[in-house]
């Protein structure tokens, strides 16, 4: 549901990196940001989120290069932390091993304490006690078609196949979407007991059959301000889905040919369902996955993807070869909306005019995996 605008509001960015977690706290005008941290120095932090239902609980998905994956939890806005007593882990009979928790998502507003986690290799987990103990969502993890949908764990991408973009319909706690970098987008209407692919209209041109029912590589899926509408940044372009339709519409055609429609992140305006932002990357030949041509830019659509405009004011004009990972772009609730992204080179960039102009608010951090504006 569209949220109420806040013209003057402090924003905190949770910046998850390959070497720990930092925070950037703004003043009410969002002009200055104060960097604090690190928390969990040396931990690979894939995602950090604050619970929007209570405003004070923080969850952090972490591991180190040698130690196994875990979840850290704070109930006092990050002053003190406790480790989950039962982090996400597959069952003995499943024979699989969680390498890392990749994506965290709070449950429905009517279900305080419920959280979801997506892992690599691809698994879905649920907590009902605020993130202290986690259990597999058997309806997905043990689904008889899961292996057909996703392939084997070894079939994934080099950094491991990811289950991400866990979306809980704000109108219905039982209506869930997930996306998988090896598998595509899937939907459940019974709180995760059963799942069905939702990929019609999306290309998978790396497969023998380029329009399969599943096997796609979605990079990021977001609700728009209207939960009838979903947007998707995919390995094969940009898409929109207006439910109850089940066929995605290609919205990448309006992107410049020299840039293309491939990227990792995509974020949506909190109140206008027609406005979205993406950050394209180079997906040509061997997939450099850099800013195209070394010229980073954010692209915004105010027309539900029918057309796009390039925004690079304040960003480096040349020889900037970083990119932005799928969780590393975020919006706040302000009016105008603040848009933020973190780079693979450890910079955080902010716009307080809906992407029109940009300035760096942090540099020299480790590689950034996720940015969340809370």
């Amino acid at each position, binding site marked *: 549901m569209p949220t109420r605008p806040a013209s003057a509001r402090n924003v905190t960015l949770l910046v998850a990196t390959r070497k720990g977690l930092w925070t950037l706290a703004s003043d009410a005008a969002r002009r200055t940001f104060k960097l604090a941290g690190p928390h969990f120095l*040396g931990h690979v932090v894939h995602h950090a989120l604050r619970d929007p239902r209570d405003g004070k609980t923080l969850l952090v998905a972490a591991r*180190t*290069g*040698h*130690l*196994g994956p*875990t979840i850290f939890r704070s109930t006092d806005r990050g002053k003190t932390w406790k*480790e*989950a*007593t039962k*982090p996400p*882990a*597959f*069952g*003995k009979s499943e*024979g*699989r*091993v*969680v390498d890392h928790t990749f994506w965290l998502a709070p449950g429905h507003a009517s279900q305080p304490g419920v959280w979801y986690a997506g892992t690599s290799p691809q698994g879905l987990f649920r907590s009902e006690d605020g993130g202290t103990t986690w259990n597999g969502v058997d309806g997905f993890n043990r689904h008889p078609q899961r292996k057909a949908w996703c392939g084997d764990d070894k079939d994934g991408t080099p950094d491991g196949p990811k289950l991400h973009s866990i979306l809980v319909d704000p109108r219905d706690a039982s209506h869930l979407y997930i996306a998988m970098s090896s598998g595509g987008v899937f939907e459940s209407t019974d709180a995760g007991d059963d799942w069905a692919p939702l990929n019609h209209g999306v290309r998978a041109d790396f497969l023998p059959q380029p329009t399969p029912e599943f096997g796609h590589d979605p990079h990021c899926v977001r609700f728009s301000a209207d939960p009838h509408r979903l947007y998707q940044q995919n390995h094969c372009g940009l898409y929109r889905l207006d439910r109850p339709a089940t066929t995605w519409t290609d919205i990448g055609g309006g992107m410049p040919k020299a840039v293309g429609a491939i990227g990792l992140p995509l974020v949506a305006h909190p109140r206008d369902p027609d406005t979205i932002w993406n950050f394209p990357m180079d997906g040509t030949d061997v997939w450099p996955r850099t800013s195209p041509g070394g010229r980073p830019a954010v692209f915004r659509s105010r027309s539900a993807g029918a057309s796009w405009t390039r925004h690079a004011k304040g960003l480096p004009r040349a020889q900037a070869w970083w990119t932005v990972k799928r969780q590393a772009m975020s919006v706040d609730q302000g009016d105008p909306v603040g848009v933020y992204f973190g780079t693979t080179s450890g910079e955080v960039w902010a716009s307080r005019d809906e992407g029109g102009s940009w300035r760096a608010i942090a540099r020299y951090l480790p590689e950034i995996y996720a940015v969340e504006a809370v």
Partner: protein
Amino acid sequence: MARRSSEVAAIIHIEIPSPLRSYTGGESRVRVAVPLLAPEAPPTLGGVLAALDNLYHGMRFRIVDEQGRIRPHIRIFVGRAVARDLRTLVPSGETVMIVAALSGG
């Protein structure tokens, strides 16, 4: 009473690497008592790590995965020998050393 408990539990010393000392309050060497099923049967490494996890909850999962395998960049020595799995026997009084390996920047 003290004599009886020494008969039913093996005392094992464990060297804790720095990445795991957040669990032990900074201690680099801890001692665990592992219950013995029979006086002549030494505990297994699995039993030692279970006892360790009882004292410092959560530590075992950081070094052993949910399928009971020692994680890829963790090595565990029993005395001077590398333990390949959790069935390795650990005689009472022995030292277990946990090593965590990293490379690159």
